[in-house]
């Protein structure tokens, strides 16, 4: 799991500046079905903003509303302070890269890219100069005379990107830009997208259902579910401080235990987990009612695993047996069956070139798990 480390410093937008895109109370109904349900959104200049959500949750619909290809049932869209809700797509300072690329099959790569500039009436020499520049940037200069059907999937994707970028829109909307690519090419292109975004300084709004992609690319992510935004924040914020159980399990993986509040003083809470018949301590910044039902969530990499018992003054210990090990090279994921019968996932980096016998624990071994009170999160529903 990457945390978009290179974006950490710029992850929180400059709140003092006016947002470039301001979406207020957008609703979109298809008959009786509500695809987008009262969405508010602010996106800042130069941001790489992702909309993340499961299939069918309304991501494309929201993007199409921003592009003007769909009109909202209610609500308003502002770009740069101007209400564009009723502007047709061809009058918006916004360009979209389609999920299907939508390249014109009867035009060469160069003419596809030039299309938008021609519509703007850019003069010939200037037009072709800009087309050449952008084709250079996406490394397609050699293929400019080809038709789309003579290109590979990755090349088509870059033409689509170039075609949308060459107009230097205020906002570039990208609908699942990398979905059609294989894993290697996708990862490579992710970084290329980030490089291009930094180079041209255009505000990107990327729709994706791939949380890894969203984490890698984005300055901020909006997680969408059933037409609503559940949480908006930087990748690290969503990962470390998820707002609820949905976010916690949607972004990365998490171990979830059901329990009750025994004691809570506003900094440290003691939670009783009935299935384990034991108490756990969690640092939690809010008061919780005694006896309240609660979920305790802890990420796999936050759990320490060892074959020797940790010192008894360590809180939050669980004993279990290793059920399964998934070796993924850089780390191993241990599935540990606890005495209570549930299975916890624990990841551990493979820091040395251990032979099988030198793994932290082997199949069937007894494993001691523990985590710090500050590494778990509580959710009330």
């Amino acid at each position: 799991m990457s945390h978009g480390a290179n974006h950490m410093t710029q992850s929180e937008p400059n709140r003092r500046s006016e947002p470039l895109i301001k979406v207020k109370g957008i609703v979109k109904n298809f008959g009786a079905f509500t695809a987008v349900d009262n969405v508010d959104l602010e996106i800042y200049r130069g941001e790489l903003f992702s909309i993340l959500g499961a299939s069918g949750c309304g991501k494309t619909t929201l993007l199409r509303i921003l592009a003007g290809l769909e009109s909202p049932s209610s609500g308003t869209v502002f770009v740069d302070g101007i209400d564009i809700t009723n502007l047709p797509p061809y009058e918006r300072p916004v360009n979209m890269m389609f999920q299907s690329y939508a390249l014109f099959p009867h035009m060469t790569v160069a003419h596809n890219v030039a299309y938008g500039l021609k519509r703007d009436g850019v003069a010939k020499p200037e037009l072709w100069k800009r087309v050449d520049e952008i084709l250079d940037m996406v490394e397609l200069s050699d293929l400019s005379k080809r038709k789309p059907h003579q290109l590979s999937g990755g090349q088509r994707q870059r033409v689509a990107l170039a075609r949308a970028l060459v107009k230097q829109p205020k906002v570039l909307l990208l609908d699942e830009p990398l979905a059609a690519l294989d894993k290697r090419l996708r990862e490579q292109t992710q970084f290329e997208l980030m490089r291009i975004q930094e180079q041209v300084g255009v505000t990107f709004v990327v729709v994706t259902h791939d949380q890894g992609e969203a984490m890698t690319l984005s300055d901020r992510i909006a997680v969408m579910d059933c037409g609503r935004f559940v949480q908006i924040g930087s990748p690290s914020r969503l990962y470390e401080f998820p707002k609820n159980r949905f976010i916690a399990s949607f972004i990365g993986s998490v171990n979830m235990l059901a329990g009750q509040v025994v004691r809570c003083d506003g900094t440290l809470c003691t939670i009783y987990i009935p299935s384990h018949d034991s108490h756990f301590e969690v640092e939690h910044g809010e008061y919780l009612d005694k006896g309240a039902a609660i979920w305790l969530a802890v990420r796999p990499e936050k759990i320490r695993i060892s074959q020797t018992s940790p010192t008894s003054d360590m809180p939050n210990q669980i004993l279990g047996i290793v059920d399964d090990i998934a070796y993924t090279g850089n780390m191993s994921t241990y599935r540990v069956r606890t005495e209570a019968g549930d299975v916890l996932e624990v990841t551990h980096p493979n820091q040395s070139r251990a032979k099988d016998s030198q793994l932290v624990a082997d199949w069937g071994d007894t494993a001691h798990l523990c985590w710090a009170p500050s590494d778990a999160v509580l959710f009330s529903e």
Partner: protein
Amino acid sequence: MRRSMYSYPLAKGWVQKISTSWRNVMIAIPFFWLLVFFLAPFLIVLKISFAESLIASPPFSSLLEILDDGTLIMRLAYENYSYLWEDPLYVRTYLNSIRISTISTILCLLIGYPMAYAIVRSPSTTRFVLLMLIILPFWSSFLLRVYAWMGLLADQGTINNILIWLGLIDRPLRLMYSELAVHIGIVYSYLPFMILPLYANMEKLDDSLIEASADLGARPIMTFLTVTLPLTVPGMVAGSLLVFIPATGEFVIPDLLGGGNVLMIGRVLYNEFNANHDWPVASAVAIMLLLVLVIPMMIYQHSQSKQAGN
């Protein structure tokens, strides 16, 4: 172990052989059909076009003849073709036919294109009904429909009666037995052949291309000219050929609606066969018509495949 390893490719080879021979059979069927029902009649007509006209049954000479000394000779009469050149009637009629069917094809295109577009754009339930309405005329006889137009266009016909009744004209317009009547007949009869290929073409058109064009700043008219129109060229070509080719050789429509005033090659051909009983000349007229239609098509096809190859 070894044996099964060797037997595997053998078995696979058999399967492949059987499946390819099946494929050949499947491909052979339409070829056979074309051979029997298209190429053979064509060769017969070609043969007759090189024969001499006789007053006999059949009314033409045979090309092959065995002389008394046993030698086989072939006698080809080129006069039938040179006759077509020499008599200005034929050249004029060919040109007139092509002119009339060209105008009719363009009219069909101008009327059919917006109709096909409207059908594609309509909601799916309406679309089905509209398509049925386009096909509906085929359920009645072609001849009957042309006769119906005679009733509409005649001096005392429906159209003139209505115009007089409305007080727009005093005397009936001369609609029948004119080129106008022929155009009306051809456009009416062949319009579905224009609409259906256009519809099939437009239906495949990806909506997101139109959206992408709008997104890139093109107004609807620009999108139509730069995206929709070029991408529907195949439909326009297919529809135009389906109208132009049969319209050029059309006999019933010029005969019934054009009368003696509109010269078209179909009528000349009919007259040579039936009135003059000159089968060889009639055959030569038919072969020339075929060449006139096929050669431009082949040139077009050639340029298309060359373009696709680039």
